[in-house]
């Protein structure tokens, strides 16, 4: 049950893959607004490694769906330049690991241009990228780096977990006047889910309660949402613990209100992130909750996170580095029985 995407609660919906939800949003926005264009390595002729940009070249031509050489820093720089001169670029960086090559343009240019220009111009750019552990792609292709972008003022940060959210949030991202980091998860592209037939623009800063519950607030995003929902079912059936799963969907802006309301009701909190524990977003949310809901907390905020290790290749080790369902179950039990 979702409570957030209600405003124009659409009647009919169909089942889509997450990647197709994204693709639909791109098609729709490029048709609606000719300032929108897509640019990136391998996005046009091949339609993107995950097929998110499939068909855009055929429909909108090579001027608005642009393949590039391997030059991520300058491609993002070009998107910044286009954005401040009236375009609305959607730039794809194939792996979030490669965004590390673009950090000057993202952090020093895109995130600061509005302020440095005294508000004269903004940078309506969407940087689509993809992270997380997949199937053995190892240390340089498996990172969860939302924590870096989260720390940079001037950026917005979106991490969808369902096809419906993906489509609705990408529409918002493209229409936003500020730079948006749109961070997909490689393990979610083939996730199926209902997506309304009608246009549904999901606003930023509105969390979605993916499961209501009384006993514990569990906050998770991206690929940790389905895993947390699995854990919640197990906790309900095996342990009689009724977990509320909140998906912030946008980490910046963050819907503190929904989180705090839930925490005040349940008095127990677990935050789950795939990213490494140290210095991550989960820690920040924990710091907010302990400050704003101090008197309601029955137990410390529990964080389930990736280990402070680069992701290794071997499958067993790889999986040992990121939260598993059992880890989430154990953390909720610790929190509730504390």
């Amino acid at each position: 049950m979702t409570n957030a995407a209600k405003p124009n609660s659409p009647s009919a919906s169909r089942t889509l893959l997450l990647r197709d939800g994204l693709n639909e949003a791109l098609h729709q926005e490029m048709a609606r607004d000719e300032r929108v264009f897509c640019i990136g390595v391998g996005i046009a002729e091949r339609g993107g490694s995950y097929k998110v940009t499939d068909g855009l070249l055929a429909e909108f031509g090579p001027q608005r769906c642009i393949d590039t050489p391997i030059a991520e820093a300058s491609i993002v720089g070009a998107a910044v330049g286009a954005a401040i001169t009236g375009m609305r670029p959607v730039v794809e960086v194939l792996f979030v690991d490669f965004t590390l090559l673009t950090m000057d343009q993202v952090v020093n240019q895109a995130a600061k241009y509005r302020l440095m220009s005294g508000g004269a111009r903004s940078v309506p750019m969407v940087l689509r990228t993809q992270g997380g552990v997949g199937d053995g792609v190892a240390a340089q292709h498996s990172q969860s780096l939302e924590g870096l972008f989260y720390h940079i003022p001037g950026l917005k940060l979106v991490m969808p977990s369902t096809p419906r959210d993906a489509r609705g949030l990408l529409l918002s991202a493209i229409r936003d006047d500020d730079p948006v980091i749109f961070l997909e998860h490689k393990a979610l592209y083939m996730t199926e889910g209902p997506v309304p037939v009608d246009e549904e623009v999901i606003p930023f800063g509105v969390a979605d309660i993916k499961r209501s519950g009384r006993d514990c607030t569990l906050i998770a995003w991206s690929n940790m949402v389905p895993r947390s929902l699995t854990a919640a079912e197990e906790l309900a059936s095996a342990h009689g613990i009724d977990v509320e799963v909140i998906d912030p969907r946008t980490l910046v802006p963050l819907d503190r209100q929904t989180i705090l309301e839930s925490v005040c009701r349940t008095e127990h909190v677990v935050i789950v992130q795939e990213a490494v524990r140290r210095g991550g977003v989960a820690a920040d949310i924990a710091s907010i909750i302990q400050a704003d809901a101090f008197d309601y907390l029955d137990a410390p905020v529990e964080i389930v996170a990736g280990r402070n290790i680069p992701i290794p290749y071997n499958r067993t080790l790889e999986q040992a580095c990121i939260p598993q369902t059992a880890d989430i179950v154990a953390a909720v039990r610790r929190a509730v029985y504390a």
Partner: protein
Amino acid sequence: MQTPDDADLLARLYRTLYGIRRFEQTCISLYRLGHIRGYLHPYLGEEAIATGVCAALGEDDYIVSTHRGHGHCLARGAGFDRMLAEITGKATGYCGGLGGSMHIADPDTGNLGANGIVGAGIPIGVGAALGATIRGEDRVCVVFSSDGAANHGTFGEALNLAAIWNLPLLLVVENNQFAVSTPVHKASRVVDLFRRGQGYGVESLTIDGNDVLEVYECAADARRRLLAGEGPILIEAKTYRQAGHHVNDPGAYMPQNQVEHYKARDPLTLCRQHLADDERADAIETEVDAEIEAAVDFAHGSPEPAVDEFLHEYEA
């Protein structure tokens, strides 16, 4: 022989040259008096490049500037008053006092902004040129850049993008022969930096950056070719600083013979020679002096930005 049109052009060019010169001198004084903080990289000695290039541009064209950017902004049409207000951190400045010397942008004149990161402006200019191309508009984008930036990754990356997409991009490499104290020959085996462009298949040439007429004509020609769709052009303009790298750098490492060589080829002197009309030149100087004096008063009289409004606007 000089036609009246030529004379008017030269007079216009001289006004800009002199304006930049006096503006930079004024900034240095204001810095010493404590009215300017942070970094200040004067464009002294390099005025002919911005002046000549910007005189060749159309109203819709874009420019991208550098950390040594005052000259680009002024040549592109920025007013002394709002420039000085910005550099002294006032609410009336081009960026409301938030940007300062290294971040002046004035999108109304197509000036996309200075940049504190050497080399970062090149891809930004590529993007502006790309956008114009997508929209099918007849605009070019000039990226001012530097010998130091030529060694930076963005230089090759972004120039290559402009080349394969055939963009209307004019990359002006202001080769003032130093990156702070590092001479070009210590930073590159190839000291004629236009040769870098050739490896990317980009039409590249080198010119005398102190002769404003040569710069103007070369830029005007380049612009025509850009608008004709021939793809990017790189112009290396050789020049020299008449000062240290920034306001507090005495520039002791600059060889005296080079300093003197270029002093003798001062862009203002050369332009006055072309103009060959001292009376007119003097009159221009008097006018510009008055404008700059007024601009100083404007900046001094302007309010500081308000903290509350600022926080309200920018805190997320």
